[in-house]
């Protein structure tokens, strides 16, 4: 389950019995055990024929599939694909049937390919495999190499290799454009999530921050994966930039902690970049857009190049209005 913030991701991973999984381990693309298809396989098809009824159960595979699938190839995406807080492609999710990751509804859709995350709906996935469906699982992306690998693998599964190559190349071009000059100053950024959670080394958020030419306070304080970063230590770290998670509409205490008065002087000095959750949740081509926005904020901070780009277009304004 890929959820927007550290806490939810950590909770989901604990539920999946994978709490100890950190950083680099997540970057390795999962290889399926490839069970021999039982005789009752519902949608037999030729070896090289592209699947025509694809169902995705996981937010991240939803988005990769929506980006890469041929018209009519993708049948259904998960309900999270239309959640504005976590899905960067909510506008396109409406065109597909919605599923909730339950084996029964998936069975009735008669898919010839099911896409899932390595930690999502494991019971559903194992039941679908027992029923003879072809299920491919994708590990969450913790760096850009993993994103490239997942894009290419999705392309290969859907028979859209050329589109996948083009997409990976476009992402790399974006990243290249956002890359700081070798001698550019690297300001210190603090990732601020609900309930004092923060992302350290080995997380996608850390990769975004470093790719944008910033240093990550959490990683410098020794955090690997997700961990709590007490407010006192964050303040003592004197970050140049605060990157806050975008709060949900009905409030919660954990998120109100991100507005502690002790952070006010830091914000007054540095400005805050609202963390556009949706693009930071899953590794995908749009992750490079998050890097570009953050890189613009860095340039504004250090006075390099344009200076009007402190706040990335829409998300920050939304965060205030919501």
């Amino acid at each position, binding site marked *: 389950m890929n959820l927007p913030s550290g806490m939810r991701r950590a909770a989901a991973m604990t539920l999946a019995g994978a709490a100890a999984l950190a950083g680099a381990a997540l970057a390795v693309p999962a290889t399926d055990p490839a069970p021999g298809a039982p005789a009752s396989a519902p949608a037999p098809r030729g070896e090289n024929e592209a699947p025509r009824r694809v169902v995705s159960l996981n937010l991240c595979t939803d988005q990769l599939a929506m980006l890469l699938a041929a018209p009519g190839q993708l049948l259904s995406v998960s309900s999270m694909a239309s959640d504005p807080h976590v899905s960067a492609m909510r506008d396109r999710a409406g065109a597909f049937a919605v599923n909730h990751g339950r084996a029964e509804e998936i069975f009735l859709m008669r898919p010839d390919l099911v896409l899932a995350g390595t930690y999502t709906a494991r019971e559903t996935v194992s039941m679908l495999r027992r029923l003879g469906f072809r299920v491919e699982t994708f590990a969450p992306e913790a760096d850009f190499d993993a994103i490239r690998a997942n894009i290419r693998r999705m392309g290969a599964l859907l028979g859209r290799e050329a589109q996948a190559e083009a997409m990976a190349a476009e992402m790399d071009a974006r990243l290249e454009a956002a890359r700081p000059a070798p001698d550019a100053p690297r300001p210190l950024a603090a990732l601020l999530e609900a309930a004092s959670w923060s992302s350290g080394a080995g997380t996608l958020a850390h990769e975004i921050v470093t790719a944008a030419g910033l240093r990550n306070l959490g990683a410098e304080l020794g955090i690997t994966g997700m961990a*709590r970063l007490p407010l006192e*230590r964050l303040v003592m*770290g*004197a970050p140049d930039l605060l990157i806050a998670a975008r709060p949900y509409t009905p409030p919660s205490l*954990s998120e109100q902690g991100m507005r*502690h008065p*002790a952070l006010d002087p830091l914000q007054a000095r540095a400005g805050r970049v609202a963390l556009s959750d949706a693009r930071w949740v899953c590794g995908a081509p749009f992750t490079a857009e998050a890097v570009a926005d953050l890189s613009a904020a860095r340039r504004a901070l250090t006075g390099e190049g344009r200076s009007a780009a402190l706040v990335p277009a829409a998300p920050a304004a939304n965060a205030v209005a919501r």
Partner: protein
Amino acid sequence: MTRPLPYPWLLAALGVLVAALFCVSLLVGPAGLGFFDSLAALLAGRGEAETLVMREIRAPRAVLGLMIGATLGLSGAALQGYLRNPLAEPGLLGVTGAASLGAVAAIYSGLSLIFPLALPLMALGGAGLASMLLIGLAGARGGALTLILAGVALSALCGALTALALNLSPNPFAATEIMFWMMGSLSDRSWTHVGLAAPFMLAGWAALGFAGRGLDALTLGEDAAASLGVRLDRLRLAVVLGAAASVGAATAVAGGIGFVGLVAPHLLRRAVGARPARLLPAAALGGAALLLAADIAVRLIAPERDLKLGVLTALVGAPFFLRLVLSTRRRLA
């Protein structure tokens, strides 16, 4: 048995203890500041980050620890005096749970964002309803067993409704905050919280202080107290409103913290000669000392984990409660 300390000396000793724990509370925290750096930052504002840590994070935390501890000790003593029941305590009776429920309704509906005072007011409302319900059910005449059972039922109901409200909230973080409302914490509180809660706590203290003389008379029985000129209806109002306002405000900003109101009065009852009016200030100081100590302990035991305060107070308080149950078993049976 040694002669107890004279009353003024006892209060002075407790005051010194509270002051010492307050200072220690200011010096403990994950930032790991040195002693002199802390003092320089707190008093002279030396070092920007250090000053923020001391003045905006640790100072409000210590002040809240002091005030909430005092609130719990004082209301515990007042409820025990009024109900003439040694097992009475805001947490055990469900007053804290009802305050949590009110606070949860205020925060997670978004009301407290529009109208910040809704938070303490709704917590106060919850605590007030619970106190009136309890006193109506068990009454000043009711037996110990009735009161405790009513409290258990009320606690369970409020806990369930709190969990339900948090689980139903569309905010994914709400459900993870059930622990806070059941166990309480002072982590990352700010002066905003002090400003919201302090007026209600002070008003509650005043009402409970006013009840002291009446509680003394009540030890002789209701008829005797009435013949001494104590207006029982006013006394009840003072206890209910005082406990509701102070416990409600405390719970609204720090969650439900149990057992402090049970332990503090008991540790000090013999030392003050079992007179409720004298017990009130002593229990307030004792409660403050207990809560400050617990809050120091949670930061020393697990500095990065936000261990909840109620975990520690229950670890100390629950065995204490069992001992009390054993010693009052004859009356309960």
